[in-house]
């Protein structure tokens, strides 16, 4: 039990929260980076390799497109259906291989990215499917290559939906980042476990909840603002409805 009236309590609390927030932002930030780097192409491929898609027949070979689509579907579904707490533990050998250890914030990035990538890939899939096929046709009529269509039509035209999808993804990464605190991953989650739960400090618990809430609020506000900024549809709320907000 921690005594709030003890000398140095508040400065200690502040110090712990500062470090915890830093670790959380670090874990989440790097995980988001990898999530976008892998999830965006994955989502595009997921749509593209469907029947009638842009990459329906890679290298002119239709069955290859079908195989890629099946494999990606399988991977994404698998990634999304394994509970995070299990995934986290199951990934320990992999994490060790990549980072060298499975303890600490850097190690926590691995399971966070692994869980977020398929989630974001689905978000990308939804956003890309929303792009009017007429736009793809118009670009094709102008002689665009498939990559030009992705870079100049599909991604820019779905940007505001992608941003909102990313924001939902980041929110769930923040959620999961709190869970890695249970296995010494650091971050605000670990503060809540170590001080709030194991040492019965309600103040720590409440402070962590408020901090996470503030981070999510800022994030969501930023995403909404950006999405509106890139929308140009005259109806900026249009895309929001299609992004599932639940995790």
């Amino acid at each position, binding site marked *: 039990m921690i005594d709030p009236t003890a000398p140095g309590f508040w400065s200690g609390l502040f110090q712990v929260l500062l470090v915890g927030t830093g670790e959380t932002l670090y874990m989440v930030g790097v995980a988001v980076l990898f999530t976008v780097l892998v999830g965006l192409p994955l989502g595009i491929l997921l749509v593209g390799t469907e029947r009638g898609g842009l990459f329906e027949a890679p290298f002119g070979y239709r069955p290859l497109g079908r195989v890629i689509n099946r494999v990606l579907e399988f991977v994404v579904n698998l990634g999304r259906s394994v509970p995070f707490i299990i995934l986290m533990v199951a990934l320990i050998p992999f994490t060790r291989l990549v980072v060298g250890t499975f303890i600490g914030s850097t190690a926590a990035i691995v399971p966070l990215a692994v869980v977020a990538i398929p989630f974001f890939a689905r978000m990308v899939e939804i956003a890309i499917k929303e792009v009017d096929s007429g736009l793809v046709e118009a*670009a*094709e*009529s*102008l002689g665009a290559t498939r990559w030009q269509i992705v870079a100049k039509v599909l991604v820019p035209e779905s940007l505001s939906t992608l941003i909102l999808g990313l924001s939902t993804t980041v929110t769930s990464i923040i959620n999961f980042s709190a869970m890695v605190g249970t296995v010494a991953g650091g971050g605000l989650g670990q503060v809540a476990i170590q001080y709030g739960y194991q040492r019965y400090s309600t103040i720590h618990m409440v402070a962590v909840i408020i901090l996470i809430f503030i981070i999510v609020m800022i994030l969501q506000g930023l995403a909404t603002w950006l999405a509106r900024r890139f929308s140009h549809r005259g109806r900026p709320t249009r895309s929001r409805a299609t992004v599932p907000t639940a995790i």
Partner: protein
Amino acid sequence: MISVKHVFKTFGAAAAATTALDDVSLEVARGEIFGVIGQSGAGKSTLIRAINLLERPSSGTVTVDGEELTRLSPDQLRLARRKIGMVFQHFNLLAGRTAQGNVELGLEIAGVGGTERRRRSLEILDLVGLADKAGAYPAELSGGQKQRVGIARSLAGNPKILLSDEATSALDPETTRSILDLVKTINVQVGLTVLLITHEMDVVKRVCDSAAMLEHGRILEQGSIVSLISTPGSRLAHELFPLGEIAPHPGNTVIEITFSGGSADRPVIAQLARSYGLDVSILGAVVETIGGNQAGRTRLELPGTPLANAAPIADLRGQGLLVEIVGDGAAMEGARA
């Protein structure tokens, strides 16, 4: 300029396949505006998409400007497409780009540098009358303005051919006219060959030099408007000059005279009445300006059987007029010649 030969297009697997194009052959001459008219489901959209191979024909050849597109590799086809502009019914503009950004799209795709892109896009926006809207997003533009951007985008790469997929179908009549006039102007100014598809006869009347009629994936007739008008029994001509149902009096002869070019302003009916002492009744008449020329069709009722009227009819034909006997009183159905 565009030559389509024996093109078939079927969708779906062999058993349940539907034929969208059924042995379609077309010839579009350099510099003309060629209209394909047909109802929804006739295969128009498939046909126009077969020209730049957005829809690859199941069989047959498509040749544009001497290049057989159906033979090209994917890379060659992409290059060939840059010489074929296309505008769409629903404009298909990128919502995230300004008017200028949309016009620049094709130039970006073709790898044109930034300065040249800006110069060219502004020049072409000026041509379509949207110089002041370069910075506007599509959501801020009216339908007519959007289509102007669409036209500008399709023309930015200096194509030799413009394909128009129902470009005016989503526009009101007045805007339709202004867009058609724009297409005509560009056609004349730049010598652009235009292939358009439409379900509106007015479009054909207003701008087309030649036309084809498409029904159930087959071309029923095609040719220059002038020659179609003077083709007896032409469905296109019939729809260009809708005269309604025929209801002749028994014992009389109903004829339809088609005027075009020079014959349009001759007092044919007055001469007929005077020379043969006939009591001519005018049952209906339509005069249209087609491709800048006056053309029309008049339905007359002459007393007596077709046999009795053989001389005046021969006389009219002798003057180079197209005369069709469409009713002889006995046949109330009005069998067409």
